[in-house]
């Protein structure tokens, strides 16, 4: 997966757990908790979906590494096998 594909997967899964958010309006540095108002259950659902799509098993201590589109793309790219 290249960066563009990872970004697309992330935004797709984000709108899966938060269907009321329009993925086209999500900025690269918007924080999923502080700006997009995801709660802890939404974040876990996002982590679960990303794991299913990419195979990256994001441990709890790394949740901050997927908190924005920009961070997540970098994190997933680095950890993809």
């Amino acid at each position, binding site marked *: 997966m290249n960066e563009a594909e990872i970004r697309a997967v992330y935004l797709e899964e984000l709108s899966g757990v938060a*269907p*009321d958010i329009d993925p086209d309006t999500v900025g690269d540095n918007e924080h999923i908790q502080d700006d*997009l*108002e995801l709660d*802890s259950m939404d974040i*876990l659902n996002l982590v*679960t979906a990303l794991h*299913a799509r990419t195979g990256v*098993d*994001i441990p709890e201590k790394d949740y901050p590494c997927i908190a924005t589109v920009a961070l997540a793309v970098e994190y997933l790219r680095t950890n993809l096998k």
Partner: protein
Amino acid sequence: MGVFKMPSLGADMEAGKLVEWLVKPGDTVARGDVIAVIETQKGAIEIEVFEDGTVHELTAELGDELPVGEPMAVILAQGEQPPATVAPETRARPAETTDAGPKPVPAKVVFQPEPTAQHAASPAARARARELGVDLSVINGSGPGGAIILSDVEQAQPRDIEQPSRPGSRAEEMRKVIAAAMTRSKTTIPHFYLSQTMDVQPAIDFLARINSERPPSERVLLGAVFVQAMTLAVGKAKTMNGHFVEGAFKPSPVVNPGVAIAVRGGGLVAPALMDAGSLTLDQTMGAMRDLVARARAGRLKGSEMTQGTITLSSLGDTGADTMTGVIFPPQVALVGTGAPHVRPWVLDDQIVPRSVVTVSVSADHRVNDGRQVARFFSEFESLIQAPETL
């Protein structure tokens, strides 16, 4: 069963808009089946049938604004004959001039606009026209007597039909429902409040340990530990679990914990986990995930909106220490959990940093006293400090 009517999905619901039928005449339905989706001020809700039967006819149409109690369909039990009084004609759709027998109280219809003499139009057409900002005076009606029907309005604004109601207006509607419910609560329920700060470190350590060995799909959140602990703890404080209706408290034999979920853009919903006492911690977590996902997608069930017996409102991982909550009628208690914070704590005569949480209870004084709530705290605290037993 006969006539299936618009159910009340909460004390303050007045009407709902039919947006989807999931059955058609001739279909057999079983108790608990979802047969329709309605749009309410709290979002889209799936409504269920309460008895087995066969769908005889659907008398409500998509787009109709239906007050609580309005007939929607005729569903017959085996061998049952259709009632003569509810033929579809009696709904008098276009001009609603005839009396279709016993009607719900019209004063409670929130969405129904004042009828105007100039433009005969169905209630659904009027409601949709107002939503879309369509001027009825410029539409030629195709209904009986030139009345404007729903499809006339939709054809006038084809591009806008797929769009749900504007987020702004939905947030406003939800604020109104919350205000109505909370005003009713605070004017009819004599609230009293207790809170207690507890060491939650054992639960946090337990979750960190089990979650580190689990894939994301099997991880458990602290919120599930709180729901599980509340469910078990009310077993020792049964007067906190149930409904106060018709002047008396009716304790519930099962615990259906309502879980307050914040809606983005403002507002709250508190759908219930059914019979959480029969669930393990993992099952409670799974049920909460499902509830949150469906709350976000607008796919909560009517039963989940009405059958909660006590509510948990959790302030999340970060944020305020404590809340003084408002009870969700007809329930008699609301439990609030603050965000866990690391604080100096005395443990075995030593001052140590521990994650602590302040748990609060708002209780109905018609049913409870401080004693019951204190017993609840004591049990809740023991449970969150022995999370492996949950």
